[in-house]
């Protein structure tokens, strides 16, 4: 079998899979929010309201596309595209399982194992800010531009702590490749702790998850679309599927971020204390590792929902303050400690 054919199959499969998760996530978000808030949530479309995302999709597709008269057409149209394309492509370097052996050929469950791993994610993630700011600017609406501005400042600021947290991970594992990091998380250290990133980098994990929430514009950092203040921020003027792309891209981002968190800090496809790969055949291990990985991912996806419906929202300057005065010094401190530790132990 040709390598490129395998690559294409992997791309298509994982793309469909991520989209599927994102679709289900819209349902989980609303249902989860409802249950947290003592109400049933959407339960009319299909069993338990499971077809609700489908209904929403149909609604968004069939709605009239309106471009505001005073909008800057090119930017207005480009906004959602620039937001969603990076979101869809960032998952390329995140693994979704160990490996599977089909027809004597070893296939790693990752679209491409590039050795710059999460540098790619960081780079692609920064692209998303263009979508937001172009959407905000192109709409020619004051609320939109406020949302765009907030989002720009926030995303740019929080990339620094995100990068610092990742840097500490590189110190620990000595590689940028997400697959290599995943592989290195097998087994235990100090005799009882699983060899996971969270136990080696507890502070780094907190930094990463906070910065990731900010990057994904989720509560408590959902200022760009804070609907009680600036209506709905950068996508105030958007309708039909353009709005759909924004909303959808957000959920795809969540999947990517959860995948990265699991791959870096939660032992990817490894179970703690037990190496299932040793007991299972190559094909079944491939499937099981995929399942384990996505069980962990779904936990973090649920975390996003859970946190969202628990916390109030920050204020713009407080977000900046937390980022620059809180997280970045902590990130530097974390790097220092990590470096010191590695220097002393090696």
């Amino acid at each position, binding site marked *: 079998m040709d390598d490129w054919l395998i690559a294409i199959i992997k791309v298509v499969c994982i793309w469909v899979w991520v989209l599927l998760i994102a679709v289900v996530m819209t349902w989980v978000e609303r249902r989860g929010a409802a249950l947290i808030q003592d109400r049933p949530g959407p339960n009319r479309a299909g069993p338990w309201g499971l077809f609700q995302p489908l209904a929403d999709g149909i609604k968004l597709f069939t709605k009239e596309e309106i471009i505001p008269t005073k909008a800057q057409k090119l930017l207005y149209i480009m906004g959602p595209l620039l937001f969603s394309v990076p979101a869809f492509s960032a998952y390329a370097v995140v693994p979704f399982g160990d490996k599977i052996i089909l027809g004597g050929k070893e296939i790693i469950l990752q679209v491409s194992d590039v050795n710059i791993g999460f540098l790619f994610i960081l780079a692609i993630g920064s692209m998303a800010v263009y979508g937001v700011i172009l959407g905000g600017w192109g709409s020619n609406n004051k*609320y939109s531009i406020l949302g765009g501005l907030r989002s720009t400042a926030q995303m740019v600021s929080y990339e620094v702590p995100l990068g610092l947290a990742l840097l500490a991970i590189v110190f620990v594992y000595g590689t940028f490749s997400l697959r290599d990091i995943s592989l290195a998380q097998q087994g235990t250290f100090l005799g009882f702790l699983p060899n996971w990133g969270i136990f080696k980098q507890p502070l780094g994990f907190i930094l990463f998850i906070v910065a990731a929430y900010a990057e994904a514009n989720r509560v408590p950092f959902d200022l760009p679309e*804070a609907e009680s203040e600036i209506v709905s921020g950068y996508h105030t003027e958007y309708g039909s599927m353009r709005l759909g792309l924004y909303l959808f891209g957000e959920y795809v981002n969540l999947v990517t971020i959860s995948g990265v968190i699991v791959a870096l800090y939660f032992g990817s496809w490894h179970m703690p204390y037990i190496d299932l790969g040793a007991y299972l055949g190559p094909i079944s291990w491939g499937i099981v590792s995929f399942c384990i990985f996505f069980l962990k991912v779904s936990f973090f996806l649920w975390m996003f929902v859970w946190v969202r419906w628990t916390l109030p929202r920050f*204020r713009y300057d407080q977000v900046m303050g937390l980022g620059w005065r809180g997280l970045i010094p902590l990130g530097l401190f974390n790097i220092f400690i990590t470096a010191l530790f590695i220097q002393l132990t090696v």
Partner: protein
Amino acid sequence: MNQNPTSQTSYEPGNYVTINIGPSHPSMHGTLRIAAVTDGETIVKADPEIGYLHRGVEKLGENLTYHQFIPITDRLNYCSAIPNNVSYEMAVEKLMGIEVPEKAQLIRVIMMELARIADHQVCIGILGVDLGAFTPFFYLIIQREEIYEIFEWFNGARLTNTFGRIGGVDADLPDDFEQRWEELKPGVRKANDETEKLLTHNRIWMDRTIGISAFSAEDALNWGFTGPCLRACGVKRDLRIDEPCCMYDKFKFEVPVGKNGDVFDRYIVRMIEMEESLKIIDQAYKLYKEMPPDAPLMARVPKVIKPPAGEVYSALESPNGELGFFVKSDGSANPYRIRIRPPCYMMFQALPELAEGEMVADLIACISSLNIIAGELDR
């Protein structure tokens, strides 16, 4: 463009952006409009505009008889209709010199305090929603539904109660009131407790509320603040204690007082007031039970309500603050003039001062914490 953003005296239109917040904006309570001149996110000038919900309630009163105006007062502060009704009835009773029977007064107290709890629950819930915390709103609003249930079983309406008549009340407490009340009490406490847990000590919430739109006691008095917003500034003024009506002087309760007059203090004052209201209802219901079951609920009111010519101002402590009714009679069956003093009208006036120098997000918090109800504001 190198303007110093803090020098708010230099107002140059070219450097600032005017944002229209309202009349239809997700966080405007009712239909208000605030034209906010902003420098980035900082508000240089906030210009409130009212009148979008003006229905001519006061003029309407001149064409209705004294009784017919009661349902109209429901529509003032639609979050707590009962204190509106009672306040108006008290004004007419004062004009006519009617002494309301004690049992009726107790029922009024019980119902008014229930309405106060409901109003505070909405206010705090909406404050949470405006600051991005959705969940406490639902916990509180579920308990409000329970309170509305009591209202419904009392005289058949949940929101626009049309509670009471001039000279008394229109119905006795339902037979199962005690059971419902005993069920409601832990529910309200639990919801308040959960709200406290989710918000009060959460640093995000504290950052968003402490020090936001703080107001000194002096300024608050000068602007005519009343109610929880004034008490949050540190002024211990509560008409229930200072000018007791409806037997309020017979109950023991604390009047919570804040310190800074910021959003956080208003929130805390309201939280404590709910607890105190529960205590008042307990005491009032105990007194109520001691009354004979056939004790009168209506005073002797003439067939036609024709107050003697004259004018009267009567106010009571509504959940929002001092709710006053000025009624002038020329001796006929219709009031000559009715004027309503809504508490949030005075507070909304001070918005430019409250919001100046804050950020757009704080403006929203400020409005929510003042509990502006457009129906009452515009009348």
